[in-house]
């Protein structure tokens, strides 16, 4: 079986700035993969390349064995790529429920009425039910981040790409989030999670990839990767920041 997501020697430059530098990476079917790396390493840019928000300068991207490098973002979503944005992009004038509804209807290609049930489920799973009818533009930053997760989930993804959703949570909120993501993973959704909150990441993922200057500098079992001297150097850098 081919990996669900595969990046082959992908590059991305903004003008003279090379942000992703011949990066190769694979996400196995059913895998939960964690991404670590310092600020500006190119992690979010990698997500934007996978989702189609950005096009690579070179290299190919495959999803479930199919070359998706030239597909627009909405087609990739319909194939099963769901993502959250590091800086939340809520549909501010729509209610939280409507945010999920539009995602479910267009992400799965179903009729609106066929999506109500799924949206209620997602609201309950992400604990957003009390905010269901609140305009998303009125949510706090933490609630907006939870909405990012919920909306990505509503599209019915095969691969869920999460970009820093644990920052700023209290310890108990963080435990709740970990439990939620584990549940989603247990339901068969493959996950790539970019996170600076390392202990949350380690509670969920089975493998880690560390990125710096747009290149992979270490990957493998979390314990081994965290023990790697090159990673420890960066990791200490993150702790200090």
């Amino acid at each position, binding site marked *: 079986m081919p990996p669900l997501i595969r990046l082959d020697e992908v590059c991305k430059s903004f003008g003279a700035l090379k942000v992703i530098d011949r990066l190769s990476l694979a996400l196995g079917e059913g895998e939960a993969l964690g991404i670590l790396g310092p600020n500006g390493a190119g992690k979010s840019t990698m997500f934007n390349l996978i989702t189609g928000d950005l096009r690579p300068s070179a290299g190919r991207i495959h999803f479930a064995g199919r070359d998706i490098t030239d597909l627009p973002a909405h087609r990739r979503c319909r194939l099963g790529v769901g993502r959250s944005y590091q800086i939340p992009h*809520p549909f*501010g004038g729509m*209610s939280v429920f409507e945010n999920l509804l539009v995602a479910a209807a267009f992400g799965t290609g179903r009729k609106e009425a066929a999506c109500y049930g799924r949206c209620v489920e997602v609201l309950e799973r992400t604990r957003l039910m009390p905010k269901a009818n609140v305009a998303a533009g009125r949510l706090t930053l933490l609630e907006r981040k939870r909405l990012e997760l919920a909306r990505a989930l*509503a599209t019915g993804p095969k691969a869920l790409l999460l970009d820093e959703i644990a920052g700023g949570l209290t310890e108990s909120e963080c435990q709740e989030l970990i439990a939620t993501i584990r549940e989603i993973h247990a339901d068969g959704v493959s996950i790539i999670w970019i996170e600076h909150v390392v202990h949350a990441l380690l509670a969920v993922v089975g493998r880690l990839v560390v990125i710096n200057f747009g290149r992979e500098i270490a990957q493998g079992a979390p314990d081994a990767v965290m023990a790697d001297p090159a990673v420890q150097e960066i990791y200490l850098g993150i702790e200090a920041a």
Partner: protein
Amino acid sequence: MAAAWRIERSTAASRAALFAVALAFAALLALPARGDSGDLRLAVEICYSLALAQAWNLLAGYTGLVSVGQQAYVGLGGYAFFALTVLAGMPPLPSLALAGLVAAALALPTAFVVFRLHGAYFAIGTWVVAEVFRLLLAQMRPLGGGTGMSLPVAVVRDLAQSRGARDLITYYLGLGLGLGTVLLVFFWLRSRQGLALTAIRDSETAAASVGIDNRRTKFAVYAIAAGIAGLTGALAFLEKLRISPDAAFSVGDWTANVIFIVVIGGIGSIEGPILGTIVFFALRALLADYGAWYLITLGALAVAVMLLAPQGLWGVVARPLGLQFFPVQRRLRPLNSPQTAPEAASPGRGD
């Protein structure tokens, strides 16, 4: 968990508004019995201004297509109507409908060109396209070239024999266009496609990430807006009985006023352009005797609204009250225990 939910789509205010709209519509149907020919003409102008405002609001307020070239389609619709009736000898009413279709059809290839431009360049591009159409039509000898042409008496008679009957027909056509556009926009926004439009309004980036084809939605909006402009052009120049390139493709008459209406009324809602239309025509009537002051006041008001209340007058009125006359939202309500209903949301844009 198998809790029972229902989706609520209207509010007390919206049901009251529906009743008010029905009453107003009945009153408008009866207007010809009381009003004179001048009143009817003004009513037609108000109706097609409302239609253009709703269309421009879809373009700029929802899909971010800030066009300053809608006069291209008003002009094309007007000229298509003259060509179909005068040159092709078709009866007026089918020609009118067809003129709208011609404008919408010509909008599609144009969209391929102007959609390559973004932001200010898109705005300028749409204006350039309108100028190109104006220059092209000025070259068409059979349609009167640069000086334009009048609608032959035979065509006018074909619509109705008496002047009164013609006024009546144009009035009802205008009413149909205005009300029809409001209803079209309302049902569009209430539909599944309306969810996509509203999502694009709030964030194009996120809309694409949840599977919405932004480009296709924009094409649809652009073509429908052109169709509405085309119908407006056909109707307006049927009423004026004369068309010329300068009048047909006037940026002031067909786009600037419309932008003013939408901006002061409130962009990104159905109610905004309606309120804007009322304010615009009220101001015009009030300031009719003051010449240049009329334009200065309009301009000052538009700038004030943009600076102080970017949500427009409707935003100022509706937001604190949570008002929504045209309910396009979906509220999730538990079936059996209304006291635990999730918090109410206020409509409109959140940020």
